[in-house]
C-alpha cells in the first residue's frame, strides 16, 4: 500500500498541541516580579541539615536566584523540618525528601548541594557530591584528618567543581577590613597572627575516645544509625550523639582546635597570604587540665601563627589579631575592631548588623561563583591548607611536643615524627572511602 504523504503546517501543529484552556504561566517561572528566570537560577539540595545548617539554608532561601529542591537526612524529623521551611518559602509542596544521598545525587536538576552533617561526613560527602557533578557548600570543620583535607582539595581542583567551606567570616565586613589593613602594609611587615581556638572550658582541645553506654537503636526510618555513623568507626547507639552531642568525641570531632581554628586559622592564613601552605614548625603550650592552651607555629617565611584560647580583647567569639612591625588590629564576631594607637584614624567602624551578615554574604559569594565558575573566598585549596594547619596543631598538642612539618609533602619530619605521621589519616568504616 502506497504510503500517503500528509503535509502538516506550523499552524496545524500549534492548533493540535496547544491546550484548549488558556495557559497560565506563573510570573516567577518567567523571571518576573523580581524572580530570576529559570535559566539564571541555581538549584540546590541539602544533605544533613540541623540547627546550623538551617541557619545557612535561610541565607540560601533569601537569594532570589536560588531554588531549594530537596533534602536528604538520616533523621525523619529533620527531613520534615527542612521540607517545611522550603515549602513555606515557595508556597508549594515540592521539596523532595530522601534518606539516601544517592537519590539526591541522581537528581540531574540539582546544581549544588549544601552539606551540614556532622564533621565525620563532610569530606566523603563533599567528594562524592563533586563526583556526582555538583558544586558544594559545606559546613566546617571540612575534614577529620590531614589526608582528608588534601583529598578534598585535590578532588575539587581536578574536577573543576566549585567548593565553598562554611568559613563565612571571610565574607564578614569586620574581618574583611582587618584583612585589608593587614594586606595594605599599614601594620608594617606582619610578624605574628593570632587565632582563637575554641575555649577549653567549652571544647577541650583534645577529644575523648570514650563511648556512651549502649541504648536500643530506633527504627531505621526514624534514625538510620548505620548511615549516621557513616565513615566513622562503629560504636553502640546512644541518642545523645544523634541529638547533637557528638562533639568532644575523637571519632566525630576535632575539639576546640578544629571547632574555632577552622575559622580563625583560616582568616589568619588569608591575611598572611598563606592560603597555599602550612607551618614548618608547631609547638604546644599549656597542656595542663583547665589551663589556657596555645600552639605556636612558624611558617617558612618566618611569619608566626599562635592558636590560643585566652588573652583576647573580649570582642566576641572567634577573635583574630594581626600584628606587624608598626601596628596591630584585632576583631571578633561582635564586629568591633580595635587597633594600635597609630591606626586610630582609619575608618574601621562596622555595625553589629553589618557584621552579622557574614553568612548571607558568604552564600551569595558561593552562588555567584557557581554561575561564574570563579573560585569563592573559602575555596577548597584555602580550606584544605587551613585545616591541615589545624590538624597538625592538634597532633602536636596530642603528642605534647614540638613537631616539624613539610608543607610540600603534608608530612611531619625529623626525629620522633613517626607517631605524628601515623595520625595524619584514619581508616574509614567500610564501605566508605575517599
Amino acid at each position, binding site marked *: 500500500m502506497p504510503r500517503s504523504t500528509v503535509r502538516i503546517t506550523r499552524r496545524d501543529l500549534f492548533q493540535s498541541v496547544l491546550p484548549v484552556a488558556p495557559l497560565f504561566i506563573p510570573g516567577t517561572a518567567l523571571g518576573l516580579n523580581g524572580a530570576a528566570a529559570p535559566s539564571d537560577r541555581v538549584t540546590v539540595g541539602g544533605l544533613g541539615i540541623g540547627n546550623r545548617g538551617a541557619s545557612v539554608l535561610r541565607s540560601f532561601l533569601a537569594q532570589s536566584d536560588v531554588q531549594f529542591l530537596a533534602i536528604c537526612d538520616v533523621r525523619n524529623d529533620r527531613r520534615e523540618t527542612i521540607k517545611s521551611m522550603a515549602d513555606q518559602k515557595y508556597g508549594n509542596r515540592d521539596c523532595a525528601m530522601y534518606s539516601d544521598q544517592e537519590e539526591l545525587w541522581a537528581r540531574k536538576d540539582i546544581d549544588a548541594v549544601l552539606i551540614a552533617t556532622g564533621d565525620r561526613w563532610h569530606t566523603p560527602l563533599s567528594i562524592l557530591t563533586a563526583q556526582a557533578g555538583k558544586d558544594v557548600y559545606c559546613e566546617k570543620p571540612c575534614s577529620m584528618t590531614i589526608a582528608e583535607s588534601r583529598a578534598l582539595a585535590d578532588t575539587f581542583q581536578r574536577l573543576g567543581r566549585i567548593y565553598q567551606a562554611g568559613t563565612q567570616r571571610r565574607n564578614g565586613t569586620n574581618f574583611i577590613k582587618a584583612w585589608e589593613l593587614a594586606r595594605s602594609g599599614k601594620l608594617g611587615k606582619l610578624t*605574628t597572627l*593570632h587565632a582563637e581556638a575554641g*575555649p577549653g572550658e*567549652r571544647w577541650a582541645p583534645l577529644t*575523648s*575516645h*570514650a*563511648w*556512651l*553506654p*549502649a541504648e536500643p537503636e530506633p527504627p531505621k526510618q526514624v534514625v538510620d544509625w548505620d548511615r549516621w555513623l557513616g565513615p566513622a*568507626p*562503629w*560504636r553502640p547507639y*546512644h541518642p*545523645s550523639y544523634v541529638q547533637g*552531642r557528638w562533639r568532644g568525641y575523637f571519632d566525630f570531632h576535632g575539639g576546640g582546635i578544629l571547632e574555632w581554628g577552622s575559622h580563625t586559622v583560616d582568616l589568619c592564613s588569608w591575611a598572611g597570604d598563606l592560603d597555599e601552605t602550612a607551618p614548618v614548625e608547631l*609547638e604546644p*603550650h599549656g597542656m595542663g587540665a583547665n589551663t589556657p592552651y596555645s600552639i*605556636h607555629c612558624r611558617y617558612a617565611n618566618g611569619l*608566626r601563627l*599562635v592558636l590560643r584560647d*585566652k*588573652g*583576647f*580583647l*573580649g570582642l*566576641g567569639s572567634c577573635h583574630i*589579631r594581626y*600584628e606587624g612591625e608598626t601596628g596591630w588590629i584585632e576583631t571578633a564576631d561582635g564586629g568591633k575592631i580595635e587597633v594600635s594607637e597609630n591606626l586610630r584614624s582609619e575608618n574601621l567602624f562596622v555595625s553589629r548588623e553589618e557584621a552579622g551578615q557574614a553568612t548571607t554574604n558568604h552564600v551569595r559569594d558561593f552562588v555567584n561563583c557557581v554561575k561564574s565558575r570563579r573560585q569563592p573566598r573559602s575555596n577548597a585549596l584555602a580550606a584544605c591548607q587551613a585545616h591541615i594547619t589545624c590538624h597538625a596543631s592538634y597532633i602536636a598538642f596530642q603528642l605534647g611536643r614540638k613537631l616539624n612539618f613539610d608543607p610540600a609533602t603534608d608530612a611531619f619530619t625529623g626525629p620522633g615524627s*613517626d*607517631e605524628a*605521621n*601515623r*595520625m595524619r*589519616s*584514619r*581508616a*574509614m*568504616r*567500610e*564501605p*566508605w*572511602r575517599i
Partner: protein
Amino acid sequence: MPQTPTAQPKTPAPAAQPPPPPLPPAMIDDKYGSAADIMALPQAKLIAILKDPEASPYAKAKACQRLAVIGDRTAVAALAGLLTDPQLSAYARYGLEPNADPSADAALRAALPKLKGSLLIGVINSIGLRKDRRSLDALSKLRYDADPAVARAADSALARLRPRL
C-alpha cells in the same frame, strides 16, 4: 618561644542557656577500665587485649586505635585476627593501615579470600591506600566480582596502585 604581649583576657561569658541534661557516665570495660586507661597501655598489653576472648568490643576497639599510632610488626597478627569480625573489622584496619611493616600488607592480602560484601570492600580500600602492588593480581580478579560494589572498590584500589607518570 616568646609570648606575644596581648591585652588582659576579657572574653565575655556566653549567653545564658538552659544546660543540657548531663550525659551518662562513659562505658567502662570490667577488666580493662576506661578508654583512657586502655589507651595508656603499652603495645604488649594492647595486643593481649585483642587476643583475650573476655575483652569487650570496647576494649578491643580502643586497643586497635592506640595500635594505629604505636603498633609495630608484633601487633599485625592480632589486628588481622579481627578483620573478619563485623563490628571490629574497621578497627582492625584502623590499626593496620598506618603500620609501616610489610607484614600488614600480607595480612590484608591474606584476608581477601575470607571476606565478602562490606568487609571485603573495607580491606580492598585499605590495600588501595597502602598501595600494595603485590595485591595487583588479586584486585584484578576482584574487578570482575559478581558484587558490583566490590568490583568498584577493586577498580578504585587498582587506580591507586598504578604508578603515576
